[in-house]
């Protein structure tokens, strides 16, 4: 499997209103690994994910997903599991109904696995989607993704609003998923501690631009945190201080590892955590945008797909199926 890419974005730009939501975004993930997409709220994480999944058009650049240039064939979605911070299922559906609704769309749906996963995650088939807590809803979406045998799991802010127990469970679920070397995970977060350990690759995004991307260990190795007294970090030659923070009792900054040797012995030089890199590193961002226009969406589908869609629509109405309910409800 070596050499296969789970996905790649090359020079992707996406406009919103008059400006750019993303500018020259390029990063890639080899198949079989986890990547964390890190950035503050509004940095462009969700936009990036939506572009990657073809849910949003791009103005420049190109996107490759599981070996297909996007927009790829619709069947590609069979291989991708998507977990957003809010469920995209009808609140009135019971979990058994979720399966009945989604199963017809997926070629490799595994009902046994769905039941096993719900059982493992402590979810009741009779529960309704709207009654699930955030953590449970996230686990339901993961169960759906794993039941249709997705190869790429994309999670947008899966840990926001989760308690530490649920976050820890998620790490375990991702670990299980990655036992198969053809499986890959992309997840976005603004809480970097989730990624400090399990992330193989990291992409730091700020203001719609990629600040840094690559193997996490390399990124961590590229920077050092320095701490010193209030006057220690001034008048330095040959050392660029990134994101300096000064208080009356001391100063703290990020420096490139190769420059750390030039610092005096009076300061404390330490290996950074992702958190310490994520914010200050956003300072040095570069910009250029070039590329080709996106292709028009691929077409072609079958009549039974329309039938399945009609069934789905039927299920949206299912709670009101009886006329009696209509009358009493009004």
């Amino acid at each position: 499997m070596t050499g296969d890419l789970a996905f790649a974005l090359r020079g992707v730009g996406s406009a919103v209103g008059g400006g750019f939501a993303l500018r020259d975004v390029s990063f890639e993930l080899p198949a079989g690994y986890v990547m964390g997409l890190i950035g503050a709220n509004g940095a462009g994480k969700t936009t990036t994910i939506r572009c990657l999944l073809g849910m949003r058009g791009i103005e420049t650049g190109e996107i490759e997903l599981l070996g297909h240039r996007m927009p790829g064939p619709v069947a590609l979605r069979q291989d991708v599991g998507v977990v957003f911070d809010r469920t995209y299922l009808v609140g009135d559906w019971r979990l058994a109904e979720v399966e009945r609704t989604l199963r017809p769309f997926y070629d490799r749906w595994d009902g046994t696995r769905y039941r096993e996963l719900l059982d493992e995650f402590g979810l009741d088939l009779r529960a309704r989607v709207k009654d699930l807590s955030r953590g449970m809803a996230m686990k339901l979406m993961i169960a759906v993704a794993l039941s249709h045998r997705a190869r790429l799991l994309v999670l947008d802010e899966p840990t926001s609003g989760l308690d530490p127990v649920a976050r820890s469970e998620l790490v375990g679920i991702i670990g299980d998923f990655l036992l198969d070397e053809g499986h890959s995970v992309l997840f976005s977060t603004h809480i970097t501690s989730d990624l400090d350990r399990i992330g193989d690759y990291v992409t730091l995004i700020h203001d719609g631009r990629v600040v840094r991307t690559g193997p996490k260990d390399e990124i961590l190795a590229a920077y050092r945190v320095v701490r010193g007294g209030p006057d220690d970090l001034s008048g330095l030659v040959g050392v660029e201080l990134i994101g300096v923070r000064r208080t009356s009792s001391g100063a703290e900054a990020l420096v490139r590892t190769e420059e750390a040797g030039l610092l005096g012995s009076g300061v404390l030089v330490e290996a950074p955590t992702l958190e310490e890199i994520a914010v200050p590193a956003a300072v040095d961002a570069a910009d250029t945008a070039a590329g080709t226009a996106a292709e028009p969406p691929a077409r072609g589908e079958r009549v039974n797909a329309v039938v399945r869609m009609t069934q789905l629509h039927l299920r949206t109405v299912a709670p009101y199926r009886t006329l009696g309910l209509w009358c009493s409800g009004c």
Partner: protein
Amino acid sequence: MRVVLSNSSGVPLYQQIKEQIGAAILSGDLAEDTALPSVRALARDLRISIITTNRAYTELAAEGFIATVPGKGAYVLPLDSALVREQLLRQVEDGLQTALDAARRAGLGRADLVEILDGLMQAERQENPSETGRNHR
């Protein structure tokens, strides 16, 4: 197999894994041919990244402690392979170098050092004759 990782030791995680598995093999806790979990299974169990785990295994393999089977896992190699010997030899050299440095500061000469070494070996032989006998094989 027992691997306990520390977040605050300052030692990189891959190094910790490598040292602990290496030590277990050298001490005989992990016998020859023992199957080790696959990189991905160990990464999952330790809740760390695959790249980190992979690095530990790669280095252990490079030092002759284990052999990895792509897509499967890894198993422990016989201890007396040349690479392990080399590894042990390096440890001996490191230890002697440390002793040498201390000796220089204490003003001890070669004769003093040899005497200390002989004394230590004799003491060990008396304490645990079978163990040292095997080491002198």
